[in-house]
């Protein structure tokens, strides 16, 4: 006979079992209303856009999702599993380089009854995973099953110019899945984040290594980012090159081809040093390491530590091994060459001339995926100057984006889309230089020189200064600058 007490106990166990085996309850639907700035008219924004994503509850009554789900958000609404009520959320941390973000919900009752999901380890290739989220095509939660196809370093599309470890799966990852958990044995083994156009049955998720790095980074209350050492490591597979350096053909060791000027390793390593080990992992002659049964780029080992920490290297130099401890640091020098988020573009308007930093976002406004003759100088400056001519590189190249028509500037032949070289003889390295160069001129016309073959223009000083407030009023611009 089954007593009433025993029956209740069995029911409780069942309920508990459901909770433990029902991670969908902790998967959150996210609705974002965002507004992107216009980088060529930086005081303006595009129309408000609605987009959907997913997230899940983690320890500390927080939601983790992709940074791209909440980029440029004006309002974020989150909904619980099978709960029609929207709750207001805000961004606590955004790691745009790793496409992860943490949300907090204004109403703490949102988390009542929700269990945080736990993180597992990097899943094995060929093992089964389940993606979970709120993809387009319906309102209810969706599950898809697949296997881990491969584990490699991939370009993270959200920043555009960062390469981190990622896991490929054949489980469907569609718009709206972003930020949702990828589960294995009810533990989170990844955050779904991107697909690759043209690749069928291939979605990518962010592995636990990257997620844990992000969560550790924010423990100090701010997000710093993934560091690097500034080492360009290339395969060392040519027998003659190996012999020349005194190395056997044992498939170990990749060559330092170049070091980023000013980078952490610049003064510690040399060209033609051969890196034999990174953080204790033997480096293959193709530059990869065997990381949890996967051969992946050795660069990931510089990303396993936090900004300012060090990584031990075993290096072959002058025909003998040495130990080198290389500090790693977050590199911001290529920030403008990647996609920017959440910080509105800087600008300065003077006499109707709109100055703004040269960036990948700005170049996109030119409407071409490849440079033409007129934008070639801009592309070179943004993507090549720093590595080819570090001495001539500017910290923040400035473009004359456009000229807002006014009698004071009506005679200017150049109407925008040009790189500014000097103003009144002052080299323009950043937007502040523009303000300073224009402000210090007390007599004669302003002389604005452009890079490339664009020559120079003169601007009548008093008339242009007087024109600025009129231009702001005419074009409905609240401020002449955002510096």
């Amino acid at each position: 006979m089954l007593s009433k007490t025993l029956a209740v106990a069995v029911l409780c166990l069942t309920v508990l079992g459901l909770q433990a085996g029902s991670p969908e309850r902790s998967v959150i639907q996210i609705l974002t209303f965002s507004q992107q700035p216009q980088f060529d008219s930086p005081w303006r924004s595009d129309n408000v856009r609605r987009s959907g994503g997913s997230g899940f509850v983690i320890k500390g009554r927080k939601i983790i999702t992709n940074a791209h789900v909440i980029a440029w958000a004006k309002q974020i609404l989150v909904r619980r599993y099978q709960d029609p009520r929207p709750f207001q959320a805000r961004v606590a941390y955004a790691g745009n380089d790793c496409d992860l973000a943490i949300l907090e919900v204004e109403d703490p009752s949102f988390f009542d009854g929700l269990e945080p999901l736990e993180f597992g380890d990097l899943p094995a290739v060929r093992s089964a995973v389940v993606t979970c989220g709120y993809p387009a095509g319906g309102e209810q939660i969706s599950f898809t099953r697949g296997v881990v196809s491969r584990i490699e370093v991939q370009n993270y599309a959200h920043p555009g110019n960062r390469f981190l470890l990622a896991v490929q799966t054949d489980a469907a990852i569609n718009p709206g899945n972003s930020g949702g958990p990828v589960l294995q044995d009810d533990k989170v083994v990844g955050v779904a984040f991107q697909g690759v156009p043209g690749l069928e049955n291939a979605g990518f998720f962010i592995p636990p290594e990257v997620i844990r790095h992000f969560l550790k980074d924010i423990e100090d209350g701010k997000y710093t980012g993934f560091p690097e050492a500034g080492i360009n490591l290339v395969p060392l597979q040519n027998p003659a090159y190996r012999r020349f350096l005194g190395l056997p053909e044992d498939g170990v060791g990749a060559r330092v081809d170049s070091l980023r000027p000013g980078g952490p390793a610049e003064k510690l390593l040399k060209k033609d040093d051969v890196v034999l080990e990174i953080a204790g992992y033997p480096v293959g002659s193709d530059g990869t390491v065997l990381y949890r049964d996967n051969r992946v780029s050795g660069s990931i080992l510089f990303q396993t530590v936090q900004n300012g920490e060090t990584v031990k290297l075993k290096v072959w130099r002058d025909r003998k091994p040495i130990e080198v401890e290389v500090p790693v640091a977050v590199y911001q020098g290529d920030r403008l060459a990647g996609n920017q988020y959440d910080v509105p573009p800087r600008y300065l308007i003077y006499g109707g001339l709109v100055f703004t930093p040269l960036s990948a976002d700005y170049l996109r406004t030119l409407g071409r995926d490849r440079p033409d003759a007129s934008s070639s100088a801009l592309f070179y400056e943004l993507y090549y100057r720093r590595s080819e001519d570090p001495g001539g590189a500017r910290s923040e190249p400035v473009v004359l984006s456009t000229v807002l028509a006014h009698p004071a500037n009506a005679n200017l032949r150049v109407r925008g889309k040009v790189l500014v070289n000097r103003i009144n003889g002052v080299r323009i390295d950043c937007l502040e230089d523009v303000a300073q160069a224009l402000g210090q001129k007390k007599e004669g016309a302003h002389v604005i020189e452009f890079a490339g073959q664009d020559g120079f223009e003169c601007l009548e000083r008093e008339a242009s200064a007087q024109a600025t407030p009129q231009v702001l009023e005419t074009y409905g611009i609240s401020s002449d600058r955002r510096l």
Partner: protein
Amino acid sequence: MTRPLLLLLLLIAGLAPVSSAEAVWEKSVVTVEVTFKDYDFFQPWNTPTRSVRKHGLYIGGQEIVTTAQYLPTETLVRLQKGGRGKWYPAKVVWFDPHADLAVITSEDPEFWVGLRPARLAKAIPQAQDFNLIRWKDGNLESRRVEFSKFTVKDGSLSFAPRLTLELNTDLGGLGWAEPVMLNGTVAGLTTSKGGNTCNVVPAPFIRQILEARAKGRYPGMGYFDFVWEPGENPTTLEHLGLKGPGRGAIVIRVPNRPGVDPVLKPRDLLLEVDGFPIDVAGDYLDPQYGHLLLENLSSRGHLAGDMVRMKVLRDGMETNISYVLPKAEYHDDLVPRELFDHPPEYVVAGGLVFQALDQPFLRGWGEDWRRRAPFRLQHYQNGSPTAERPSLVLLSNVLPDPVNVGYQEARFLVVDRINGRRISTLADVVEALKDPKDGVHRVEFMKGDTLQSLLLDAASMDQATQRVIRRYGLPAAQRITEPAAKTKTQGTMG
């Protein structure tokens, strides 16, 4: 004659391929068939050929004039008269791609029988409609084309600007040196067509070039090698010290030519060129052709080496200067636009393929090359040659071989040094490879994010090169034209 009969005759005349008035051109306009080397710049040892047909104009003296396009690399030229029948072997006796003109002759006396020389117009009036003549399906076709304007453009094969007659027509398939006629004379030869605009090299320009050649005094096309911008901003003109009404064009860049002391300086205000006042748009008023870009004054009655008088405002003072027209040479550019004076060069060493970086190589990416060719290689076109680096060499490809294991993916990298020697030409590559250091060849590339250096075993290099030649069917390990053989872009052939 009754009115209906007259109308019928007119109608018939309009429908006929050629009216009686134009029939005389049958004896002056010939067909030119050119078979030319259409190099494969990704495999420069290959020399495929292609054939085209264009038009030529008999100008007397057993000479046919036509545009230069396709002729600099010809392997076979034939002529046909009357639009049908026998093809006569011919040869190019002179060409200049910068002028986009060539002269052809045939040694077969039969070809010249019945031909009548055409007359090249000395001047062309504006705003007249023209007749375009071409052989089509064995018949001489004459079509009216509408005058658009005179303008100044780069040549089809050259960066040197010259007077160009623009015609408006919806006729397709033009640009094959079809003669354009006006009042019984030849007004020019078509060079290209884009949209409804057909570009014509005008007869006065052709006369100028051919007359200089006939006198044995054709030094080549000259051009203005400085960069200027319009002086349309009164504040800029005032800043430069100009008093009174706006005028002039502003010099913004002057090339630094080795051994040449430039007479112009950046921020000179060009007030007069060759006696013509320059307006703020950079135009002058041509007595025959109206407002034209000042660039035309480099070829209006002038050739390379001529002195052109200029008046500039420099540091607020009017100054007279004498500008000597430099000769248009493809090697004036860091990335030459053409290389008609020699076949594409290459050096294959241990499977590494070295080539000169030039625009024909970039055009190997096809019609859409400006979009498809690697941006970094294209951007070198904006650079200027220097005494230290007058030209560029790139590692264009690697033909896989055991000696180059590890480098198979390396390509499109501009070479900085080999074995410590600075590399500007393929001859430099050959010389540098004679001097390995410590038993290896070290190839270093231009500074950047891409591969910076590679190293090959010197002892096995020659053997590997021979292996690559056999395996990939190359005719030779290298093709380099001696410098003495590529001194001219204009040539006398035969």
